[in-house]
C-alpha cells in the first residue's frame, strides 16, 4: 500500500493557492455529466453537497436521519475558530495554524493544517451571509470568545448552539439546491457498502431504514462525511445513532484507517449517574472561561462544596498550568481530572467528578452576565442533575467526545482508494493527536465549502466522461448480496442476548483499556477480549423483528458488529504507538511529573492500517510527518 500525501511543493503559505492554480478544472458544461455521491449531511456533507450542486455536478446526498438537519454536528455547543483577528489581540493565520499543530501534539499534517487556518476566515463570511445569527456586540459587529488551547479570542459563537446554527446554515444552502433540483436528497438511507470497480470507488449500497429496501447507487466519485466513531465506547457525548459503519465498510474495501487510537476525552461532561445511562452530556468547554475547576485537597472529603474553605481546595489546573490555567487543552484537563479522582479526591456520589465553580465569576460579573453567557448550559445542567449551578458548583467528569483518527486521506481529501473522498471528523488529517476546542466545526465546513469543491475536479477530470458504471455491474450485484447476507444473518440468528448488551460490554472493555490512560498489559488484554466478544456476538445476538420495515434493533446490530471490529484495531494502534501524545496517553511513557512523553524519533508519523480480511492481522503502514515550517517542541502549557 502506497501512502502519498500529495503535498504541493513550495512555501507553506503558497501551497494551497499553487495547488488550485495547477489543478485541473471541469468545464461548466461537463459538470452535469458527473455524478457524485455524498454520504452524510452534517457540516461537511451538507456544505459540500450544496456547493457541488451549485457548481453544476449531479449530486445525491444520503443521510440515515429523517432530515439532513438532524446530523450530529447540530449538537456542537461552543463555537468555531477563525483567524479574523477582529479582536486585535495578535491573531493571524499563522498563529491559528501553529496553535492547531501544537494542540495536536505535532502529529498532524502541516500543509493541511495551514490550509485549514487559511480558509477559516472565509467560513465566517459565508456563514454570516447565510444568516447564521452569530453573537454580536452592541455596535453590530461579531463577538468572540476564547477557548481552550489558545491565548487569543478567535472563537465565533451563537449562544451555546453554534453547531446547530452552522448546520442549519449549511442545511439551508443544501435545501436551496434540493429545491433547484441540483441535489437529490435521499433521507432515511443508510450506507452499508462501498462498491469498488477496477480499483475505484464507484458507488454504494444503501438500506432504507423505513422500508428495508436495499438499493444500488452508482457515481463517478463517493464522498464520506459520516462523522466519528466515539460510540465504540457505548457511553459518549455522541448522538446514540452515530456510528462507524460507512467508514468501516470503506476500510474493509481497501481504504486505510489512520490513527484510530486518537480519541478525544472531553474534560467537561456531566458525570455518569447510573448503569441505565444511555449517553453523556457535554457542558461546553466555553464554561472554562469563567468557571474554576477544583477538588478538595484532602482525600475522601465528603463535606459539601461551600463548607470546604478556600485554602483546602486544590485548583489543580491553575496550580499546574499557571499560564493557561482552566483553559488548558482538553487532553491535559481530562487527564488531570482523572489523576485527581484516582487520587481519591473526586467529588459526588461516585467519586468520579470534579467541581466547575462559578461563584467567583458570579461575584465579579453578576449572575445576569453569567446567565447571558451560559444560560442554556446551566439549564441543561439543571434538567439533568436537578441542581442549579448558580448556587452550587457543577460536577463534571471527562467523557469520550471526538475521534481525531479516521480514514486516511491525501491533501486532496482522497483516500488511498481512488474515487473515495473523506471529509470532516471521518478523516484523520487536521487535528493530529488532539483537537482544540472550536476546531471541529471549522474543519467540517472548511472541507465541505472550500476544500473538496476545489480538489474533486482534479480526480474527475482524469476520468473519461462516460456515465457512471451501470448498477448491473457484477461488483454491484456482489456488494448487494453481501449486505443482504449480513442482514439476513443478523435476523435469523435468534440468539439470547440483545445488541445493546454487547455494546455495553464492548464499551466497558474500551473505556477500561483504551480510554484516558493506556498500558501495554491492558491493551493486550483488550486485544484478546474483543475477538472473543465478537465471536459471542455473531453466535448469540438476538435481533427481533423483520428486515422489510423500520427495525431499530437491526440497524444497531449492524453498527455494533462494525464497532466490534474497530475496537480491536484501536487497541492495536494504541499498543504499537509506544509514546504518549495528545489524547493517546501510555502510562509507560511519561515524565516524572506525569506529563506526556512524546517520541519524535520513532513516532512522528501517521499510522495507517490496511485491512487484510476477517480474522487476519491488519498491516500497519506509516506516513512520515515532515515539518517544513514548524519545529518540534515539547508541548507545554505551564
Amino acid at each position: 500500500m502506497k501512502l502519498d500525501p500529495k503535498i504541493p511543493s513550495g512555501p507553506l503559505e503558497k501551497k494551497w493557492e499553487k495547488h488550485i492554480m495547477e489543478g485541473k478544472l471541469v468545464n461548466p458544461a461537463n459538470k452535469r455529466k458527473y455524478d457524485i455521491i455524498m454520504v452524510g449531511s452534517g457540516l461537511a456533507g451538507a456544505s459540500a453537497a450544496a456547493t457541488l450542486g451549485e457548481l453544476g455536478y449531479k449530486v445525491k446526498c444520503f443521510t440515515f436521519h429523517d432530515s439532513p438537519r438532524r446530523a450530529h454536528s447540530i449538537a456542537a455547543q461552543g463555537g468555531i475558530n477563525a483567524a479574523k483577528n477582529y479582536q486585535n489581540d495578535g491573531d493571524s493565520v499563522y498563529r491559528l495554524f501553529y496553535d492547531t499543530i501544537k494542540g495536536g501534539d505535532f502529529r498532524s499534517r502541516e500543509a493541511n493544517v495551514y490550509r485549514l487556518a487559511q480558509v477559516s476566515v472565509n467560513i465566517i463570511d459565508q456563514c454570516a451571509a447565510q444568516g447564521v445569527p452569530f453573537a454580536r456586540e452592541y455596535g453590530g459587529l461579531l463577538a468572540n470568545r476564547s477557548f481552550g488551547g489558545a491565548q487569543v479570542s478567535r472563537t465565533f459563537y451563537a449562544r451555546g448552539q453554534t453547531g446547530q446554527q452552522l448546520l442549519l446554515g449549511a442545511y439551508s444552502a443544501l435545501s436551496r439546491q434540493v429545491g433547484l433540483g441540483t441535489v437529490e436528497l435521499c433521507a432515511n438511507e443508510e450506507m452499508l457498502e462501498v462498491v469498488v470497480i477496477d480499483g475505484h470507488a464507484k458507488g454504494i449500497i444503501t438500506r432504507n431504514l423505513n422500508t428495508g429496501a436495499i438499493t444500488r447507487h452508482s457515481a463517478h466519485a463517493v464522498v464520506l462525511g459520516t462523522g466519528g466513531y466515539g460510540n465504540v465506547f457505548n457511553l459518549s457525548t455522541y448522538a446514540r445513532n452515530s456510528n462507524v459503519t460507512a467508514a468501516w465498510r470503506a476500510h474493509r474495501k481497501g481504504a486505510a484507517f489512520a490513527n484510530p487510537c486518537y480519541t478525544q476525552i472531553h474534560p467537561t461532561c456531566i458525570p455518569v449517574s447510573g448503569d441505565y445511562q444511555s449517553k453523556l452530556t457535554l457542558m461546553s468547554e466555553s464554561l472554562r472561561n469563567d468557571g474554576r475547576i477544583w477538588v478538595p485537597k484532602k482525600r475522601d472529603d465528603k463535606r459539601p462544596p461551600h463548607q470546604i474553605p478556600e485554602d483546602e481546595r486544590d485548583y489543580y489546573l491553575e496550580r499546574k498550568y499557571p499560564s493557561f490555567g482552566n483553559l488548558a487543552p482538553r487532553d491535559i484537563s481530562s487527564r488531570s481530572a482523572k489523576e485527581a479522582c484516582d487520587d481519591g479526591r473526586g467529588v459526588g456520589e461516585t467519586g468520579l467528578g470534579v467541581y466547575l465553580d462559578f461563584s467567583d465569576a458570579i461575584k465579579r460579573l453578576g449572575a445576569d452576565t453569567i446567565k447571558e453567557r451560559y444560560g442554556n448550559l446551566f439549564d441543561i445542567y439543571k434538567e439533568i442533575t436537578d441542581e442549579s449551578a448558580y448556587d452550587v458548583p457543577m460536577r463534571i467528569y471527562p467523557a469520550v467526545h471526538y475521534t481525531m483518527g479516521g480514514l486516511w486521506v491525501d491533501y486532496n481529501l482522497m483516500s488511498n482508494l481512488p474515487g473515495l473522498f473523506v471529509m470532516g471528523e471521518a478523516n484523520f488529517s487536521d487535528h493530529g493527536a488532539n483537537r482544540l476546542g472550536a476546531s471541529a466545526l471549522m474543519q467540517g465546513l472548511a472541507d465541505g465549502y472550500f476544500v473538496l469543491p476545489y480538489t474533486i475536479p482534479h480526480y474527475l477530470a482524469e476520468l473519461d466522461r462516460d456515465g457512471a458504471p451501470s448498477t448491473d455491474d457484477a461488483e454491484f450485484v456482489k456488494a448487494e448480496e453481501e449486505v443482504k447476507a449480513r442482514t439476513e444473518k443478523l435476523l435469523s440468528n435468534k440468539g439470547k442476548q440483545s445488541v445493546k448488551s454487547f455494546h455495553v460490554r464492548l464499551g466497558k472493555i474500551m473505556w477500561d483499556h483504551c480510554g484516558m490512560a493506556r498500558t501495554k498489559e491492558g491493551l493486550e488484554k483488550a486485544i484478546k477480549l474483543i475477538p472473543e466478544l465478537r465471536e459471542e456476538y455473531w453466535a448469540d445476538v438476538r435481533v427481533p423483528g423483520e428486515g422489510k420495515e423500520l427495525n431499530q434493533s437491526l440497524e444497531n446490530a449492524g453498527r455494533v458488529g462494525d464497532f466490534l471490529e474497530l475496537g480491536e484495531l484501536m487497541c492495536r494502534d494504541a499498543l504499537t504507538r509506544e509514546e504518549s501524545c495528545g489524547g493517546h496517553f501510555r502510562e509507560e511513557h511519561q515524565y516524572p511529573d506525569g506529563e506526556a512523553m512524546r517520541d519524535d524519533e520513532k513516532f512522528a508519523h501517521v499510522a495507517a492500517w490496511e485491512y487484510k480480511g476477517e480474522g487476519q492481522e491488519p498491516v500497519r503502514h506509516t506516513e512520515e510527518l515532515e515539518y517544513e515550517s514548524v519545529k518540534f517542541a515539547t508541548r507545554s502549557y505551564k
Partner: protein
Amino acid sequence: MNVKLRVWRQKNNETEGRFENYEAKDLNPNMSFLEMMDVVNEDLTDSGDEPIAFAHDCREGICGTCSCMIDGKPHGPEHGVATCQTYMRSFKDGDTITVEPFRAKAFPIVKDLVTDRASFDKIQQAGGFITIRTGAAPDANSIPIGKEIADLAMDAAACIGCGACVAACKNASAMLFVSAKAGQLNLLPQGKPEKDRRVLSMVAAMDEAGFGNCTNQYECSAACPKLISEEFISKLNRDFVGATVRSSFKAKPLV
C-alpha cells in the same frame, strides 16, 4: 419507582394501530424518559417481543428527532424541553403514562411512535434560505447587525424542527415552525432582498403539505421545547400580507 405505560403500536402506515400496556419497574427517578423506554425495550427483546420503535438521537434536546406525545402533551409534562430531556422525576410512582406519536396529516406514521416529517424539509426547500453562492460572501463585519436584532433572530433560529408545534395544534398548523425560520431570515439585513419571495413560497409549501390553518390559540408556543414566541406568527402574517400586496403590483423599472 414503577410506572405503567399505554403505548401506541402500529406496524406501518397501512395498518391500524392500537394501545398496548406495559409495565416499567425499578426505575431510577433520575433516568430520562427515553432511558425508561430503553429499559422497556430491553425487556421486550429479552422476552422475544418486538421493541417499541421511537425516534431519538442526540438525547440532549437539540437534534429535534425525538417526538413523543406523553399524556397528551408533545414532549411531556415539562415546559421548554424535548422528550429526551424529560426525566422520570416528573412522574409519580404508580402513574399510568400514555405515549403516542405526534399526530398530523402531514406527519404520516412510519411505525409505532415514529412519524415522517419530510414535509418540514419541503417547506425549507421552498424558501427557508438566503441565496448566497459559496465563496461569494463579503467580509462578515461588513454587515453590522444591531445586537437586539441579532438576538431576536437567534431566538427564532433556535427551532429544532421537531414538530411539537404541529402536534399541539388542533388544526395541525405549522405556522410556528414556518414563522420561526422566515422570521429569522426576514429580520436580518442579509435576508431582506428575497423576503417577499421567501414568505410566499414557504407559506405555499406549507399549505401544499397539508398543514392546517392557524387560529391564534398558541398551543404551539406553549409546547415548543425551545419556547419560540407566537409573536413570530404575527410577524409572518404581517410579512405575508405585505408580500401579497406587493406581488400584485409588479415592480416596474423606473424610466
